[in-house]
């Protein structure tokens, strides 16, 4: 597979009165062509800074950025064939929807752009609102216009900066599906920045989990979930129980991890007591204090498996144990 974007040892430090903040710390990363890539991490982990470096809105202190093999490290934002869908959408308030979408093409001096603009608006099902002003649109509609405004330029890369986080839950689900469809239809490489692990796991072909300016792991969503490289990754992409291996009757040093859904109630096995129950809809979480002292979470599709205070026995799927060094 061809490489759309290659980052080599990218570092960015922001000046700060007391201590300079190293937002991006020696990041090396490859994004393939036609890939839906997600940068996942908590706020302040440097994922948005990394995106701004790729867009050209910030300049890296060190490192190299290659776009389709070309070095674009020193190119300003307006010379990079990369378009961003901003978190705030940043639609131009004085221009109609159609003029917003046409902006990028006009700035490149292209003529006969009417057809391309209509096509882009059709792609996001906004052609009927082409003459509206941004202030007359709902959040979801503004999001679609922002997408069309990026896609119409047929860039090598579309960057989505927490683009869905301002939408309510139902609309976000809808737009997630929509984004997937658009990425498949256009064949453009998408990089999505998000702090929502569900979003990253459900949409991306590959996910990079970031921690304090560094890449913690890059892998496909199932790999990230089932074979996390560190406790940090395991904890960030879902709930994970960590207990000493000996508590599970395994004779090895250190701790092992397992997901709540990989534990099941049995008539015999590891014994403990239910301390708390949390109903979650499709599953119910039972918090169980093992007799060895550790507290674990068990997820079960049944909501009547036990009552608080009950003595239970659980079995852990040995094939799904997570072993990570740190």
């Amino acid at each position: 597979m061809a490489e759309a974007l290659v980052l080599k040892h990218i570092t960015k430090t922001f000046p700060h009165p007391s201590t300079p903040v190293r937002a991006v710390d020696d990041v090396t990363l490859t994004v393939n062509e036609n890939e839906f890539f997600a940068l996942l991490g908590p706020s302040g982990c440097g994922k948005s800074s990394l995106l701004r470096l790729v867009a050209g809105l910030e300049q890296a202190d060190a490192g190299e950025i290659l776009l389709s093999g070309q070095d674009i490290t020193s190119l300003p934002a307006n010379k990079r064939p990369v378009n961003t869908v901003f978190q705030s959408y940043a639609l131009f308030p004085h221009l109609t929807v159609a003029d917003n979408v046409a902006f990028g093409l006009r700035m490149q001096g292209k003529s006969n752009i009417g057809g391309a603009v209509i096509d882009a608006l059709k792609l996001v099902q906004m052609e009927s609102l082409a003459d509206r002003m941004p202030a007359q649109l709902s959040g979801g509609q503004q999001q679609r216009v922002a997408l069309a405004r990026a896609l119409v330029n047929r860039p090598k890369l579309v960057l989505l900066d927490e683009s869905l986080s301002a939408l309510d839950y139902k609309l976000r689900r809808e737009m997630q599906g929509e984004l997937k469809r658009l990425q498949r239809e256009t064949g453009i490489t998408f990089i999505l920045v998000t702090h929502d692990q569900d979003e990253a796991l459900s949409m991306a072909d590959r996910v990079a989990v970031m921690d304090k300016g560094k890449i913690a792991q890059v892998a496909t969503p199932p790999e990230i979930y089932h074979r996390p490289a560190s406790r940090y990754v395991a904890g960030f992409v879902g709930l994970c129980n960590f207990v000493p291996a000996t508590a599970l009757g395994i004779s090895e040093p250190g701790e092992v991890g397992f997901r709540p859904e990989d534990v099941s109630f049995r008539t015999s096995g590891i014994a403990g007591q239910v301390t708390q129950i949390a109903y979650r809809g499709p599953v119910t979480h039972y918090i169980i204090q093992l007799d060895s002292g550790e507290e674990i979470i068990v997820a079960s599709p049944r909501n009547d498996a036990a009552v608080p205070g009950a003595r239970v026995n659980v079995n852990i799927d040995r094939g799904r144990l997570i072993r990570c060094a740190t």
Partner: protein
Amino acid sequence: MRNVKPLYLLSPFFIVIGVFFVMPLALIAVYSFLQPGEYGGVEWHFSWDAYTRLLFERDFDGKLTFNAGYLIIFMRSLMLAGTCTILCLLAGFPIAYHMATRPERHRGIWVLLITIPFWTNLLVRTYAWMLILRDEGLVNGLLQHVGLISQPLPLMYTPFAVGIGLLYSYLPFMVLPLYATLERFDWRLVEAAQDLYADRGQTLRRVIIPISIPGILAGCMLVFIPSIGSFLASDLLGGGKQMMIGNLIQMQFGFSRDWPLGSALSVVVMAIVMLGLMLIARKGEGTGGLV
């Protein structure tokens, strides 16, 4: 009691508006339709005469002939006010832009600096410009001292001096509304423009300026309106070679003792300004209702 609209609560508003805005203007409007008193003041006989005399001259035998004198003064004042507005906009926009892009804690200082000239009377400040521009003044003295020129440049009593004076007097009125608009500007839009292939010039022309139109219009109004009636700069720095509307009106209430003519001139100036404002308001409908 909910249904009773206590209109009397609005009375302070009506009193202030009435005393300070409506009454003086109404007085001027009424005076413009009266006849001049022999020794100043007015005589209470209705007459169109003041308005007729704006464009026509009355011969000894009472025949009217067209006289463009006042019209020329009007046009000259409008031109001067227009030039002043454009100069202020050209100089004020970069200043306001600079102020609005400073760190937030520095902006207050900049606003203070811009308003410092208001602490002193305009007449005094215009005299100061005479000291700067005259033959033995600061500019000529400095240039001669450095040896760039041997003879003093004729700076005083030129259109250049009038321009400088007007620009100086009205620049703060342009900068402050522009600053107020640019300070609220969403700079993420500039990033969006750059991301969409716009260079610096295109970003300024296609994004920053169009979105700042309400501030630009407000600034232009605040400069244009008072500068129509201004005469200090043209009197002191231009040598009073050319009469302005302001001079003319002042003269009617002074030694010409022709209050109706002065009032008629004032009413016409007001009408012109009002017409301009209405045009701007109609054009500015889509700009957020600031104008």
